């Protein structure tokens, strides 16, 4: 642990030493973030004064994946499946119930104080709603400059204004707008401000939680293009959360599909989109309307019955079994592991959490 000065601040030297631990170069293609069996349960309590736990919302329930240096990992899933909770736990905004998160090999899931602050420099976040993620009473300059006030070692005081203006320039906003307030900007422009704030500390990983869901169709493309350019420029690794499968396919190198707090299938974008083997992924993909009227007659859609069960009381065994058309006795008893089934080969041989994982037969 870093020694603390009496006023609670970290001595600059210590912060730098702390940081040195994370300066190990990681080459492209190596894991920069390793998540293992991550669990987040929100307790359900009863009573005001004497709280009694009566259950738990199992928002994230045993999630494992690697994020590689320089890649974009897309996470898709229906609302309520735990995507935002996963992001918050990775960001250490919610304490994990169990499991481990390693950043460049260092365990970060239970860091606090200055050690946590040092990690925060390297992992940043872009929020979904550009209207609520910027403090309405701060100017754009103050919002983007705040990271420097919190981490003064990143930019010396004199350089901050210039740094902020450079950031505005990088995200495609006029640097002269430094004194304006968020409400004077449109949704797309605010999202750019949010991205600039995320970039300020020169992080290596950016977790984007539905960054374009709240934007208009014609503005979404602007922001997606910007994110891709920034990734190339600064060699960023993205975890890109969305419920729009088309956008995720466009931006991601690898994709993980979540259902009720678990990852049910994960692989490269081609493996997931062209050769899905988990029934849920197949249903999800078949349900997405494709902007092509010619295709509408030829599509064979899997229409799922029913709704997503409550995460407070998920089904036993495979969580998807209540809506799955392939479900058998075994699905209710055994939790299917996220692995490659031995009977699959070619691009179909990727991690899939289904006892009967198989590609769809055409014309079915």
């Amino acid at each position, binding site marked *: 642990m870093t020694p603390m000065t009496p006023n609670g601040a970290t001595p600059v030297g210590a912060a730098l030493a702390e940081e040195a631990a994370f300066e190990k170069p990681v080459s492209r293609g190596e894991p920069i973030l390793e998540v293992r069996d991550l669990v987040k349960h929100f307790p359900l309590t009863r009573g005001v004064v004497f709280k009694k736990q009566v259950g738990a919302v199992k928002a994230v329930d045993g999630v494992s994946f690697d994020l590689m240096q320089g890649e974009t990992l897309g996470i898709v899933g229906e609302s309520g499946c735990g995507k935002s909770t996963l992001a918050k736990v990775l960001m250490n905004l919610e304490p994990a119930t169990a499991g481990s998160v390693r950043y460049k090999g260092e365990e970060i899931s239970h860091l606090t104080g200055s050690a946590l602050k040092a990690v925060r420099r390297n992992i940043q976040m872009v929020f979904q709603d550009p209207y609520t993620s910027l403090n309405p009473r701060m100017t754009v300059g103050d919002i983007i400059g705040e990271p420097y006030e919190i981490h003064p070692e990143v930019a010396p005081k004199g350089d901050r204004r210039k740094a902020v203006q450079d950031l505005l320039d990088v995200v495609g906003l006029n640097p002269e707008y430094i004194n304006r307030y968020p409400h004077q900007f449109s949704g797309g422009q605010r999202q750019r401000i949010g991205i600039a704030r995320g970039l300020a500390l020169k992080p290596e990983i950016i977790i984007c939680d539905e960054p374009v869901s709240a934007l208009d169709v014609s503005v979404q493309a602007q922001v997606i293009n910007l994110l891709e350019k920034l990734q190339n420029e600064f060699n960023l690794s993205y975890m890109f959360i969305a419920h729009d499968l*088309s956008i995720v*396919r466009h931006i991601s190198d690898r994709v993980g599909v979540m259902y009720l707090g678990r990852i049910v299938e994960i692989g490269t974008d081609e493996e997931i989109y062209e050769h899905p083997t988990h029934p849920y992924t197949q249903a999800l993909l078949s349900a997405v309307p494709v*902007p092509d009227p010619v295709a509408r007659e030829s599509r064979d859609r899997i229409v799922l019955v029913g709704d997503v069960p409550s995460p407070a009381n998920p089904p036993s065994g495979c969580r998807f079994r209540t809506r799955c058309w392939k479900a058998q006795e075994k699905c209710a008893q055994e939790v299917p592991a996220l692995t490659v089934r031995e009977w699959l080969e070619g691009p179909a041989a990727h991690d899939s959490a289904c006892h009967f994982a198989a590609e769809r037969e055409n014309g079915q």
Partner: protein
Amino acid sequence: MTTQVGSTMPVHEEPYSGPLLDVRDLHVEFKTRDGVARAVNGVNYSVSAGETLAVLGESGSGKSVTAQAIMGILDMPPARIPQGEILFRGKDMLTMGREERRQIRGQRIAMIFQDALSSLNPVLTVGYQLGEMYRAHHGTDRKEAKAKAIELMERVRIPAAAERVGDYPHQFSGGMRQRIMIAMALALEPDLIIADEPTTALDVTVQAQVMDLLAELQSEYHMGLILITHDLGVVADVADKIAVMYAGRIVETAPVHDLYAAPAHPYTRGLLDSIPRLDQKGQELYAIKGLPPNLMRIPPGCAFNPRCPRAQEICRREVPRLFEVTGDNDSPVPGRGSACFFWKETLHDADDA
């Protein structure tokens, strides 16, 4: 027994062959603190029985306001309709008497909203709210209304309808609530349904269920359907024809296949190019530059001109009318129009690409 006056309205109607609903040159403006917002500036569209018209446009383009004007549920003031006609079976609803209009609304034209939870009364059971439709309009008694409610819930495939008829709206999931909204709209077997972003708030898997249901019921009852949405995918899936809105005007109308094959307006073109496709991994997305205009200061000439890659001098000067779009052999394509001076170039550009 309650017998309501007016509930036994004669349903005899002279046969009518034109479009079910014909909106002509509709204008709507709002008086606000900062000035007059021109939300709708000359909208023209029509729907016939059994037909699905998709109204496509980004948020703020005036889709909902047009629908509200048709339903007669705009708050006036601040809204004002300075100009235009809304013909329902050939009769202008804007000049009709109050009572006549009320008869059409609800019974002949029904509306489905995006947010089902806030459109349902939270303190009444869904069964009561569905039955209410019959009680109010047909004077049905309580018991029969309940039976009808259950029947309706079964029609929209709500499982265990008889048990759930006494549940409250918050006890249903989002998709189920939207089904209840559809059931409510269907109750009086209207001629026309206006669905304003009915699936925007739903997840894809549920969205597919709801859209299927809507399409199926439409063809079964041979209703007209106006589907308002911003999702190009949903439109391609269900629409017969499309009207693309921008800044309160229709900038392009076309049968669905033609529009996706070769758009004749640069805005439509831009929209189609700017969305990522699920079935193909593309390169960099085309991005329409800039932002939709502020409705208080719509640019002169073509409203799209500051964002348009094709804009010329004339676009900044003159408002383009909806030009008739012709096909390969110079014969007009029925139902196709584009409000762009350069529709021909845009159309052929798409052919090359």
